[in-house]
C-alpha cells in the first residue's frame, strides 16, 4: 500500500508536462542520484527507460472451482533501475532470481503487481490498446531458446514479415518482402533463405532470425533474455558480435539478461545483480566486477569457472552453502542472509536499501556504487591475488 501512494506522484507529473518533469521527478529520487553523482564515464544522455519499485507477485491458489489465494511467489519485489540511450544494462542472477520476470514485465507480457516503468517519461504499465501497441514498436525482445521462439509452421519470411502485418504502418505491403530480405542480410543470413522453415537452421542461425524479428520495427530498446545461453561456445561469440554491431548501427539500448557473468561483462556498460527478486548491487561493469561490495556479488563472481587453470588457483573462492530459498517464502530482512557469511542480527530485521553504502559516500572510489548490504565492503575476487 505504501507503494500505491508513491506511485501517483511521478505519474501525475507526467500527465502535467509529459517529458521534462517526468525525468526530473525521478532524478530527484534517492536511487538515481547516486549513479549520476558518480564519475559518469561517458555522456549517456537521458534515461530512455526508468523502472521504479517494480513488483510482481504470482498468486498461489488452491481449489478447483473456487480458487482461493494461499500465498504468493514474490518473483520481483521492488526493483528500480534506469536504462540510458545506446547503452547495455546487464542483469545477472541465478535461476529463480526474477530476472526473466523483469524481462516479461518490461515487455508487458506480464502485468506488474505494483510499480512503474517509464518509457520516455510515460508509464507503460498502465497502457493498453493502441497506446501499448505503439510502445511495442519501440521495445522489442530476443528470446532465450531459438528452438521454441520461432513458430515451426511458419517460414522465416512469415515470421519476420508478421511484424509488418501487425504494424502495417512500418512497411507498405509491396515493400515487405524486400524489407524481410534486408533484415536477413543485416543479421548475416542469406536473403534467399526467406522461404525456409526454422528447423532447417542451426541454433545460431535461428537466434539471428529472432534478432531480425526484434529489429523489424526499428525499436529503440531490445530486451534480451539469455540470448546466447542455448548456443554453442563457438557460435555465442558470433551472435554477441552481431548484437554489438547492431547496437552501434541502429543506436539500440539493450537490457541484457543472462546468467553468464563473463558474457555480461563483455557486452554491458552497467550491470545489476539480482537475488531473490531484489537488486543486490548495480553499477558500471568495472564497479561490479572489479570492486564488488555486496557479498552475493562476490560469491557469484568467485564461483565462475575461468578457463585459465593458473589464474584459477590464485583466486579466492567463496563457496556458498545451501540453496537459494523459495521466493514464495523469502527470508526476512536481507534475502541473502541465510547464505551470507557476514550475516548478523541486523540483517534479519532490516531490509537493506539499494544505495551507495554510508562508508563510501562522497568518496572518489569505484566502490562507491549502489549496493544493498548493511555491511558492504569492497573485495576483489576476480583477479588473482
Amino acid at each position, binding site marked *: 500500500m505504501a507503494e500505491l501512494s508513491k506511485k501517483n506522484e511521478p505519474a501525475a507529473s507526467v500527465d502535467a508536462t509529459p517529458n521534462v518533469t517526468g525525468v526530473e521527478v525521478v532524478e530527484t529520487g534517492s536511487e538515481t542520484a547516486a549513479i549520476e553523482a558518480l564519475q559518469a564515464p561517458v555522456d549517456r544522455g537521458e534515461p530512455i527507460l526508468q523502472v521504479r519499485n517494480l513488483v510482481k507477485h504470482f498468486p498461489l491458489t488452491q481449489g478447483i472451482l473456487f480458487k482461493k489465494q494461499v500465498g504468493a511467489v514474490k518473483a520481483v519485489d521492488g526493483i528500480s533501475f534506469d536504462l540510458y540511450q545506446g547503452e547495455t544494462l546487464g542483469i545477472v542472477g541465478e535461476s529463480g532470481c526474477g530476472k526473466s520476470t523483469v524481462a516479461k514485465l518490461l515487455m508487458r507480457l506480464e502485468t506488474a503487481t505494483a510499480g512503474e516503468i517509464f518509457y520516455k517519461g510515460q508509464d507503460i504499465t498502465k497502457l493498453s490498446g493502441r497506446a501499448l501497441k505503439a510502445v511495442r*514498436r519501440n521495445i522489442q525482445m530476443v528470446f532465450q531458446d531459438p528452438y*521454441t521462439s520461432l*513458430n*515451426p509452421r511458419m517460414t522465416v*519470411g512469415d515470421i519476420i514479415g508478421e511484424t509488418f502485418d501487425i504494424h502495417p504502418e512500418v512497411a507498405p505491403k509491396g515493400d515487405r518482402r524486400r524489407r524481410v530480405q534486408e533484415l536477413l542480410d543485416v543479421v548475416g543470413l542469406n536473403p*534467399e533463405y526467406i522461404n525456409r522453415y526454422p528447423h532447417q537452421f542451426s541454433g545460431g542461425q535461428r537466434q539471428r532470425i529472432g534478432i531480425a524479428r526484434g529489429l523489424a520495427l526499428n525499436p529503440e530498446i531490445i530486451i534480451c533474455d539469455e540470448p546466447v545461453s542455448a548456443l554453442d561456445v563457438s557460435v555465442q561469440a558470433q551472435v554477441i558480435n552481431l548484437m554489438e554491431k547492431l547496437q552501434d548501427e541502429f543506436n539500440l539500448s539493450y537490457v541484457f539478461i543472462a546468467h553468464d557473468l563473463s558474457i555480461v561483462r563483455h557486452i554491458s556498460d552497467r550491470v545489476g545483480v539480482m537475488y531473490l527478486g531484489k537488486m543486490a548491487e548495480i553499477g558500471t561493469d568495472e564497479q561490479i566486477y572489479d570492486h564488488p561490495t555486496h557479498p552475493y556479488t562476490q560469491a557469484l563472481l568467485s564461483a565462475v569457472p575461468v578457463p585459465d587453470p593458473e589464474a584459477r588457483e590464485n583466486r579466492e573462492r567463496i563457496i556458498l552453502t545451501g540453496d537459494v530459498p523459495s521466493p514464495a517464502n523469502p527470508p526476512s530482512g536481507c534475502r541473502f542472509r541465510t547464505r551470507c557469511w557476514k550475516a548478523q542480527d541486523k540483517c534479519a530485521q532490516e531490509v537493506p536499501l539499494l544505495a551507495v553504502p554510508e562508508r563510501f559516500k562522497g568518496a572518489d572510489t569505484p566502490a562507491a556504487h549502489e549496493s544493498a548490504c548493511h555491511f558492504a565492503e569492497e573485495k576483489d575476487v576476480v583477479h588473482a591475488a
Partner: protein
Amino acid sequence: MPENTAVVNETTEPVKAEAAPAKDAGTGKPRSLWSDAWHDLRRSPLFITSAVLILVLLSMAVFPSLWTDGSPTEADLANKYLKKPEWGALFQPEWFGYDIQGRSVYNRVIYGARASITVGVMVTLIVTFLGTVIGMLAGYFGGILDTLLSRLTDIFFGIPFLLGALVILTAFEKRSVWVVILAISFLGWTSMARVARGAVIQVKQTDYILAAKALGASTFRILTRHVLPNALAPIIVVATTALGGYIATEATLSFLGVGLQEPLVSWGVDVAGAFRSIRNAPYVLIMPSVLVSITVLSFLMFGDAVRNALDPKLR
C-alpha cells in the same frame, strides 16, 4: 492465407543461389503453411490414394445414378430372394447378390453411401469445430473460463454415449439424417474438446506465442496463426479416426432401431438388416461392411497425409 496475396516483386530477388537446396531454388513466391502443405500433398502417394478413394465414395454419395441404373428399394421377393452374387457382373445390380427382400445389394451399397458418408463427415465437421473452439478457448484463456468449460465437458463426457443417443433419438418419431447427425454431435464433441484443450495448452507455453504477444499481435491473430496451426495435428488425427467411428455409430443406432429407418438407405441400415440372413447369405452383411471399412481407411489415410504435410519438420 493472407501471405499469398502479398505482392511479390520477383525481379528484386537476388540471383545468387548459394547452395540452396533444390526445394528453395528459384522460388520467389512467398510461401505459407497451407500452400507448402498443398505442394507436398500433391506428391504424397498416401494422399493421392486416399483422395481418389474419397472422390469415388463422394461420387457415389452425390451421383449414385452414375454407378447404377437400378433402384435400392425395388424388391422382387419372388425371383430374387437371397439370390447369390454374380461376381462377373461388374457394376450390375446382380453383382453383389440380393437381400432377403430381393433388393440388389449392389444398388443398396451405392445408394447407402450418401447417408453414411453424410453422417460421418457432418458429425466430424460439427464435432471438430465445436470441440476445437471450446477446447481452444478453455486452453488458451484458462482461469474461470477454463474451469467452466472443462466442467461442462466433463458433464457431457459423463453421459453414456449409447444411452444418451437412445434417449434423444427415441424422442423423435421421424428420424432424418440430420436428427441422427445432431444427436451424435451433441454427445460426441467432448473428446475433441479435451484433445484440443491439451494441444492448445502445450502450444500456449512456447516462446513464439510470447514473441507474437510482444509484437502486439491481436488475440485473434495469435489463435489463428500461431496456436491453431500448431495444435492442429492431434486434432486432425482424432477427427479422422473418429470419422469411421461415427459411421459405425450410425450403423449401431440403426441396428438398435433408433437410427436411420427404412425406407432410408444407409450402410448402417443394411448391416442392421443383414443379421437375419447372416448364415445363408453372408454377402448381405459383408458388402456394406467392406464399404464402411474402405471409407474409414480412406479418411484415416487422408488425415495422416494432411497431418504430415502440415508439419514442416517432416519435409
